[in-house]
């Protein structure tokens, strides 16, 4: 591919925009997944602590 | 004729409203649903009327018209009266008569002495009159099972009496009535389904013939 062909900026723009959009998409999905998992772990941990307290109290 | 429900489970918005509810109601029986608000009384009526499907358990109407499902043999009178203010009382009743396949609007009017209002626009009716109009449909349309949600709300003394006679006639004619209500309907309830039981397990407590 020779870099100084005409319209090269259009070609590069296409690839760059595609890369940027796909990276943003992947990042958003991964981040949301981590967030939900963190909340879920916190809730299950809290639940476990409460159950242990309840058992200890019996 | 016998309406049977076996350990019905109702779910709304991901939350279990009630589970494990069983009841039977035979011809001539009035089953009253009691319990705190939000216990699922109305949900059970809506379930029988086919408006929301049970998540578990099943229902059966023995002796009814088997080719039709239960909902088509029920009348469900809820809080909303389903009347169009832009139409007259008679037009509204005539529409529901045509839609449900027959029934003379005079029966509905006479049941709650609404004859003088026949040609009035429904917009002019008071809340109580609208209530009597909705209940009037019970007299007009012939369906064996009546599902009444707080029927006496908004009724004055003699309207309540008219309702009592209507229900009395329906029961004597072999009909079945399930009603949610907080006041005494003046008809001996053959059974009470109490939703207040612990953890959503409502039990059917039959009241003896005493009263």
């Amino acid at each position, binding site marked *: *591919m*020779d870099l100084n*062909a*005409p*319209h*090269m900026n*259009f*070609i590069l*723009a*296409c*690839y760059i*925009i*595609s890369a940027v*959009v*796909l990276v943003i*998409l*992947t990042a*958003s*999905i*991964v981040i*949301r*997944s981590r967030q*939900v*998992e963190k*909340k*879920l772990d916190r*809730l*299950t941990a809290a*639940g476990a602590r409460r159950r242990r307290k309840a058992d200890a109290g019996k | 004729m016998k309406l049977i429900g076996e350990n019905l489970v109702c*779910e709304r*918005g*991901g*939350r279990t409203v009630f589970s494990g509810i069983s009841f039977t109601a035979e011809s001539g029986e009035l089953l009253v649903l009691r319990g705190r608000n939000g216990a699922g009384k109305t949900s059970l009526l809506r379930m029988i009327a086919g408006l*929301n*499907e049970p*998540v578990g358990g099943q229902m059966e109407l023995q002796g009814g018209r088997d080719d039709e499902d239960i909902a088509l043999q029920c009348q469900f009178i809820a809080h909303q009266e389903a009347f169009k203010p832009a139409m007259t009382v008679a037009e509204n009743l005539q529409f529901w008569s045509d839609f449900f396949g027959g029934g003379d609007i005079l029966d509905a009017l006479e049941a709650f002495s609404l004859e003088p209002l026949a040609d009035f626009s429904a917009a002019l009716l008071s809340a109580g009159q609208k209530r009597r109009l909705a209940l009037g449909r019970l007299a007009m349309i012939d369906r064996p099972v009546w599902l009444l949600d707080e029927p006496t709300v908004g009724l004055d003394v003699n309207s309540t009496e008219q309702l009592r006679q209507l229900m009395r006639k329906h029961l004597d004619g072999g009909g079945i009535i399930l009603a949610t209500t907080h006041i005494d309907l003046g008809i001996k309830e053959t059974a009470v389904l109490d939703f207040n039981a612990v953890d959503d397990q409502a039990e059917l407590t039959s009241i003896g013939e005493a009263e």
Partner: protein
Amino acid sequence: MARFEKFANPTQFLRLQGFLQPWVTAITIILFVVGLYLSLFVAPADYQQKETVRIMFVHVPAAWAGLMVYTVMALSSAVAIIFRHPLADVAAKSAAPIGLAFTFLSLVTGALWGKPMWGTYWVWDARLTSMFVLFLLYLGYMAIWQAIEDPHRAARISSIVALVGFINVPIIKFSVDWWNTLHQPASVFKMNGPAISPSILIPLLVMGAAYSFLFLALHLLALKTEVNARKLRQMQLAEAGKV
């Protein structure tokens, strides 16, 4: 009604997802590396378009993936309605943003390709117009999930919308093509050239596979998130019930 608290199949799914995720991610990365190398360095320049033909390697796969994802959404919506499978409508919901991104990319790269080809950024070419309508169908589908709070109801309504949309995709495609031939008898330059030589076809197929595996990888992860989010909602509901 779907019984969400019965986690029989979601746990199976989570195990499957845990197993597949690393493999699918690895394959996606490999495909992209190979695809990009082939597209940028190996494929010959087109005698007519010279280097700008390389745009095709990101445009056509994106358009193809956008359409594939909508089909996946329609199929899972059908499964959700017919078999009331609790995971099916969540599968459609989690796929939508990915499909939207692909369709958006196909429009952007299509417009950027138009500039050197026809001198204008946006030309109402049949394929671009159909992709534009598909983009709107995606927006409509995602708007349903925002508009309806109750997840069960939103799930059912969005399934109906996806299916109705899916029935219309071929009709819209046919009518737009027909409309295109009506106004521009024969557009001089077909989007992907007269005949595709193998040297062009191979990078195209590899990039197409790369986009598809990317969708699979993202969809698996997004679906896991949705399953966990639902479990979270259930637990919060239960907590709220106790208070």
